């Protein structure tokens, strides 16, 4: 076995009473791709932040290249040859690629020399690793896949020998992800060490040499990837067996509940985000909208739910039009039976600073059940919240706890409980399981299927292709604001992937 690039010994880290990392031992061999998997909140990000100098461990040792080191800032980490590619890119949007690469590594006060040096260095890196990017392109004009490449270049430019990638494929199309994996393999062949943090087990199986599983702050197992299975890893992550496929019967589609015709939406800058989109959703079916994040799905959802102004087109709810001027009262739409689980639960679907019970009425706070005249009926709200907590197994089951103190999965259950328990005719759901742990995903999927079987119309938007494929009765693919294709649930991932990447129908069919 090759010499260890990184060795973590007995790492402990607590935030107040929360022990994010407990006695973690980890050895990453040089020149390998090492995966770290775990549910949200398992402590993966904390551990990597310690390695990258964002946090300091309370106790424990870090060895890099066999020598004990102390990493107090990210500069220390960089000096030791550790580079990190963050989940949310740390790039200046209106700078060029070149400017971003030298940011923080400028060699003198005048940029001219640094830029010239960086340009030749970038050329070398591009040649060696197949990381082609136009050095003079402006970041915001690049697709996310290329932006990520710039992040990798940044790390390599600083001389990284060890590259940490935090959930790198969340924003990529399957094709872009494949390209990323080829790059990572190439980096490995050149002797670099890669640490890949992800919750997608398929990626772990596809690319890593070894994999470590974290659960609740502890490192529960390390396996050689070839000798393990997805099932075993999933079980290690959650501590019990999980269902990865959703059981569901035939859809019994009924009358059209939601009808979208020629809908066009522009953003604040006047850029067309949704372009002449038309589709219907019937009662008793789940229509899934697949697509890479940022292709108009969010705007589509917002327009349908009355939050965003639409330039043209119409949306009919049970045969009656919805006000698309952006001034619609979402409260009125709720009364008409439209429930909306927004994509961004942190800022839109919930008020994190509120107590759980306060969030369980958000948007329905006009409902007489929760009011006594102008006053809130606290007893009724509490009883209602308690009821939802039991039905949806929300933990901890305390309606007075601040919402921010719930895990992502439980926060999402709070939103789902609120929206589903209103017994809506139409449910529109954005990213129902983003940042949600495996156990809760299973629960949420079952609930969505149950809604469908009760004859509700469900419109599902997700960037998780697996989710779309396993839940939807019909799949619409969105690319650059348009619906570029409709497929049945039997569509293959490759077929959908091509559509998502904007490859035309004819080519996709071949």
């Amino acid at each position, binding site marked *: 076995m090759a010499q260890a690039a990184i060795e973590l010994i007995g790492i402990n880290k*607590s*935030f*107040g*009473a*929360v022990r994010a990392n407990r006695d973690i031992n980890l050895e990453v061999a040089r020149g390998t791709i090492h995966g770290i998997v775990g549910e949200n*909140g398992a402590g993966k990000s904390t551990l990597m932040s310690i390695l990258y100098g964002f946090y300091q461990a309370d106790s424990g040792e870090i060895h890099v290249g066999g020598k004990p080191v102390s990493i107090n800032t990210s500069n220390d980490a960089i000096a030791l040859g550790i580079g990190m590619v963050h989940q949310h890119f740390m790039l200046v949007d209106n700078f060029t690629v070149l400017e971003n690469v030298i940011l923080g590594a400028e060699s003198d006060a005048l940029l001219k020399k640094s830029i010239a040096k960086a340009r030749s260095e970038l050329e070398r890196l591009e040649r060696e690793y197949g990381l082609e990017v136009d050095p003079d392109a402006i970041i915001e004009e690049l697709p996310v896949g290329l932006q990520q490449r710039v992040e990798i270049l940044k790390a390599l430019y600083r001389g990284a020998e060890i590259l940490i990638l935090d959930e790198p494929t969340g924003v990529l199309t399957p094709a872009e992800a494949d390209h990323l994996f080829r790059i990572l393999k190439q980096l490995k062949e050149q002797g670099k060490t890669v640490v890949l943090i992800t919750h997608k087990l398929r990626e772990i199986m596809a690319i890593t040499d070894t994999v470590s599983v974290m659960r609740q702050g502890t490192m529960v197992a390390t396996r050689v990837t070839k000798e393990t299975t997805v099932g075993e890893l999933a079980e290690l992550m959650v501590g019990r067996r999980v269902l990865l496929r959703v059981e569901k019967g035939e859809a019994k589609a009924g009358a059209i509940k939601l009808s979208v015709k020629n809908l066009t939406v522009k953003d604040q800058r006047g850029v067309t985000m949704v372009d002449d989109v038309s589709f219907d959703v019937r009662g008793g079916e789940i229509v899934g909208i697949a697509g890479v994040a940022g292709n108009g799905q969010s705007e589509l959802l917002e327009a349908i*739910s009355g*939050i965003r102004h639409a330039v043209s087109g119409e949306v009919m709810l049970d045969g009656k039009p919805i006000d698309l001027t952006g001034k619609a*009262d*979402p*409260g*009125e*739409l*709720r009364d008409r039976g439209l429930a*909306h689980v*927004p994509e*961004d639960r942190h*800022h*839109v*679907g*919930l*008020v*994190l*600073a*509120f*107590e759980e019970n*306060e969030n369980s009425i*958000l*948007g329905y*706070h*006009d409902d007489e059940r929760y*009011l006594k005249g*102008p*006053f*809130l009926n*606290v007893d009724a709200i509490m009883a209602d919240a308690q009821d939802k907590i039991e039905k949806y197994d929300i933990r*901890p089951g*305390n309606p*007075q*706890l*601040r919402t*921010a*103190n719930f895990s992502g999965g439980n926060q999402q259950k709070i939103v789902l409980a609120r929206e589903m328990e209103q017994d809506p005719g139409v449910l529109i759901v954005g990213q129902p399981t983003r940042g949600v742990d495996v156990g809760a995903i299973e629960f949420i999927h079952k609930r969505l299927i149950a809604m469908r079987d009760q004859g509700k119309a469900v419109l599902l938007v997700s960037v998780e292709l697996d989710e779309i494929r396993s839940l939807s009765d019909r799949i619409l693919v969105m690319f650059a604001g348009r619906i570029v294709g409709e497929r049945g649930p039997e569509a293959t991932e490759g077929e959908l992937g091509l559509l998502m990447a904007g490859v035309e129908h004819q080519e996709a069919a071949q």
Partner: protein
Amino acid sequence: MSTPYAKLPAWADYGLIPLINLSVAFIVAGFVVMLVGENPFRAAVILVEGAFGKGTGIAFTLFYATTFIFTGLSVAVAAHCSLFNIGTEGQAYIGGLGIALVCLSFDSVLPWWVIFPMAIVAAAVFGALWGFIPAYLQAKRGSHIVITTIMFNFIAASVMVYLLVGALKPAGSQAPQTRNFLAGAELPKLNWIIELFGAKIRSAPLNICFLLALVMAFLVWLLIWRTKLGYEMRTYGHSPKAARYAGISETRIIITAMMLSGALAGMMALNPVMGDQHNVAIDFVSGAGYVGIAVALMGRLHPVGIVLAAILFGMLYQGGAELAFEMPAISRDMIVIIQGLVILFAGALEHMFRPYIQALFASFSPKAVGLEAVKGKGA
């Protein structure tokens, strides 16, 4: 996740931390007192005795506190809707105009218990209207409320000067103020309550507005945490996007919150105008609106905290006046410095000691920080 620190038990959060912050402020203030060559311990004794030692001192302390309760509540109501109302000063000033109109019109014909409710309404309406304009500009035009409310303080000051040297000034008078109100517009004193406890009061302006302030504190609590409107204000205050999603109109909630805030600010004027001076004079608000910001922040935007913080600032005002009198080396400006230090440590640096205290708590008993929080007692 959003807060890197675990939660503290409620008593530490709302009791211990403010106490530590306050102590540090006083220690630093003590050094300043030493710097001017006075004994800080004696100064502290004079300050506290001046504020609470005698009946008269207590009455004055509570009189000042009354003013600060109103302005503190005003700032807090807007802040719960994430609006930083710096215009409390001007809204209170204009509130005084409403009171003046009511009192000057009716003080010769009606008894105080009829005029008082009318004056409350007038003060609230005038204050609310002065809050309405910046609110409208914010909601409809996007003009930042901080900027507009500051500007409206200056406009209020100019308007009042114009009126107080003109229309409102009795003919032949040299002073820029209204005529003195008649008995019908004088509010009953509350000094007898303190005298019940055996203290002697020479003359002090503590009046029935103190009780009104406490009632308003309770009503503000009711509004913020127990009404639909308060719920909507807090939703908007924490997340405008969530408010939009929940069908809460941005325009309506901004304007409503600012008008309520302005109304509370306007009611502050009742205390000095009808309870003490019995006229409306130039600059009678004298910075109480700005103190309200400190009071609201220190009171953590909670009415109970605001009442306590207002009493603290009342103490600094009253005790500080005594101090300036007893120790000639300590001028009025020194008192402002001490007040500034309290604001600095209790407001701006509120969280400075928090991590250390949390670490301390965690090392004593992890359960005290972890499980208490999970039970949600802190809320």
